[in-house]
């Protein structure tokens, strides 16, 4: 197991380097005119001229240095002009082009909001998916199975953003209810905070549950046909024991991977839900920064998100190896 963990962690390093390169080069693709435009928007009467601001932005982005030095500085392995190291490795994601505030601080404030949304979504998703998926498998081709499968397919086809729009639109038209326009911190009003998160969270969970439900059903069906399940039955074990102890344990392994693979989808989903339900999380921050063309924030968020997903995938892989010893020895 230890050898497997070390190998897996070593494999992450080149991926992380490539991720940082992709993000860096994407930012580098900003057409020059956009910097001029940004400078034009930032001109204040009596302040610096447009050219001076543009020059300032170029210097801030370090655009005067050769591109590989710019990259190494951004990562934090090459000294800046003042001789200090300040890059991602030193925990510095840079600062906003407009507000000049450090990006990391902003992100740290916004992560709990997206995280809360994500946790509610995962919990609801699993709460919907597992019971229906398991029932569908152990009562294959029953009416309940057909109903469950239809629900899964339906959840997969309905666009999340449309469902959210409908959930937002109808109650406000009929009962004058609408989601709170301001964010209520969990420390101030727990119930109010939960009320704010529960609907978008459940909606995201519903959208996610379709895939998990189908995966649970398929895997469980496959496992239920194995010889050791027949053995378990012939030992005279009760159905509950056969399903939970023998079948489910083995069927869950691929399902865990699917849940891990859904993480990018989940994080992507927060963009839309936060936009519709006025939650100031990472997704909202991203949209606002894109609107403001604040590219240093955008690259900061992308690096951050990619790293989170990479680490989560590592965790999924390790869980997988822990659950299924065959993987470690491949």
């Amino acid at each position, binding site marked *: 197991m230890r050898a497997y963990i070390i190998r897996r962690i070593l494999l992450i390093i080149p991926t992380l380097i*490539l991720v940082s390169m992709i993000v860096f080069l994407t930012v580098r693709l900003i057409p020059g005119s956009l910097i001029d435009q940004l400078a034009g928007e930032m001109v204040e009467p009596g302040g610096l001229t447009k050219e001076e601001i543009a020059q300032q932005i170029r210097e801030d982005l370090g655009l005067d240095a050769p591109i590989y030095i710019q990259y190494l500085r951004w990562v934090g392995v090459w000294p800046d002009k003042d001789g200090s190291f300040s890059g991602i490795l030193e925990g510095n994601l840079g600062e906003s082009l407009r507000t000049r505030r450090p990006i990391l601080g902003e992100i740290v404030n916004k992560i709990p909001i997206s995280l809360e949304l994500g946790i509610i979504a995962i919990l609801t998703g699993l709460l919907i998916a597992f019971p229906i998926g398991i029932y569908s498998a152990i009562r294959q081709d029953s009416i309940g199975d057909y109903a469950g499968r239809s629900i899964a397919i339906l959840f997969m086809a309905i666009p999340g953003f449309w469902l959210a729009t409908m959930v937002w639109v109808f109650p406000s038209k009929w009962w004058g209810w609408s989601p709170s326009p301001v964010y209520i911190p969990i420390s101030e009003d727990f119930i109010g905070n939960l009320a704010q998160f529960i609907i978008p969270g459940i909606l995201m969970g519903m959208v996610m549950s379709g895939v998990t439900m189908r995966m649970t059903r398929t895997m469980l069906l496959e496992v239920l046909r194995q010889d050791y399940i027949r053995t378990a039955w012939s030992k005279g074990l009760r159905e509950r024991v056969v399903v939970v102890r023998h079948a489910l344990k083995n069927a869950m392994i691929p399902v865990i991977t699917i849940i891990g693979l859904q993480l990018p*989808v989940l994080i992507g989903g927060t963009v839309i839900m936060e936009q519709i339900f006025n939650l100031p999380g990472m997704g909202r921050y991203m949209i606002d920064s894109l609107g403001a063309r604040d590219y240093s924030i*955008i690259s900061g968020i992308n690096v951050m998100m990619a790293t989170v997903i990479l680490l989560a995938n590592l965790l999924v892989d390790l869980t997988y190896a822990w659950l299924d010893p065959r993987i470690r020895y491949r």
Partner: protein
Amino acid sequence: MAEETTGIYAGQLSIRKPRSFWVDLAVRLVKEKPLGTVGAAIVLILLIVGIFANFIAPYGYQDGFRVTGAVRLAPMSADYWLGADQLGRDVLSRIIYGARISMFVGLGVSVLSTLISGFIGIISGYVGGKTDLIIQRFVDAWMCFPGIFIMITLMALVGPGIIQVIMVLGILYGITGSRTVRSAVIGIKSNVYLEAARAVGAPTRTILWKHVLPNIMAPIIIVFTSRMGAAILAEASISFLGYGIPEPFPSWGGMINQGRRYFNDALHLAIWPGVALSIVVWGINMLGDAIRDLLDPRLRGGLGRYSGTKKKLSKQLTKRLAEHEQAEQPG
């Protein structure tokens, strides 16, 4: 038991004309997969509506109240079946033109991403070794970015528009899908026929085109169909956020976003594009699932169905051998 046996023999003995792969697939789809057939019908309707949008739609997608004569935010009526929007544009006409956008995006992204997936996947899988290791780290890196984040980032860089949407989604899906193609190539790589082809000295290009590609057609078709629904949904999502296809072009996602601002006076604006989107995505998913079931040998049960293909296989084999001999002689 007796019935089964006769079934097998009947299947083997029946003399069927060897059908082409696509006809065979279509016949089996209709025979075995009722939901998939409904899905295929929905896809067909999308294609017809998309192609002939300008003949089907009662008004143009840009025609305001001056042309349509509709009141601003007119409700659903006999004249304007799905009502009119804030500029008096006929919603039904816009949804019909929106089908054309969805069709272009769905097909464009599927074609582009399948080409990219096929290219990366075949090279990575067939060459293997260090090349594979390096390519796979690139694929890993791209797969780390959460879907919508990287999509809207790239869209913000390249600017809104249908070509841009197709390029961005096509490249992203193409990179992700290469995994499926790669594992399919690795799966067939150790087969004897590839070894044989190498042994007779067939050039790599010939091996890839004539031996690898035809044998991984099933996963490639699966990648193709599964991308189409996802692409249409993704386009709608990014248009909803305002980074996809710009006004006045009637993207369904954009229409929902516009419509939600007028929900108090005109609910229909946000409802109908979403209904159209859901039906189309459902249909494509159903068709994709059915095709996957029909093509994936692991999911295919029963012996009787192989009767038609065995003959075809031997015919193909003879043909390929002949082609080989031809290819050998001049060189």
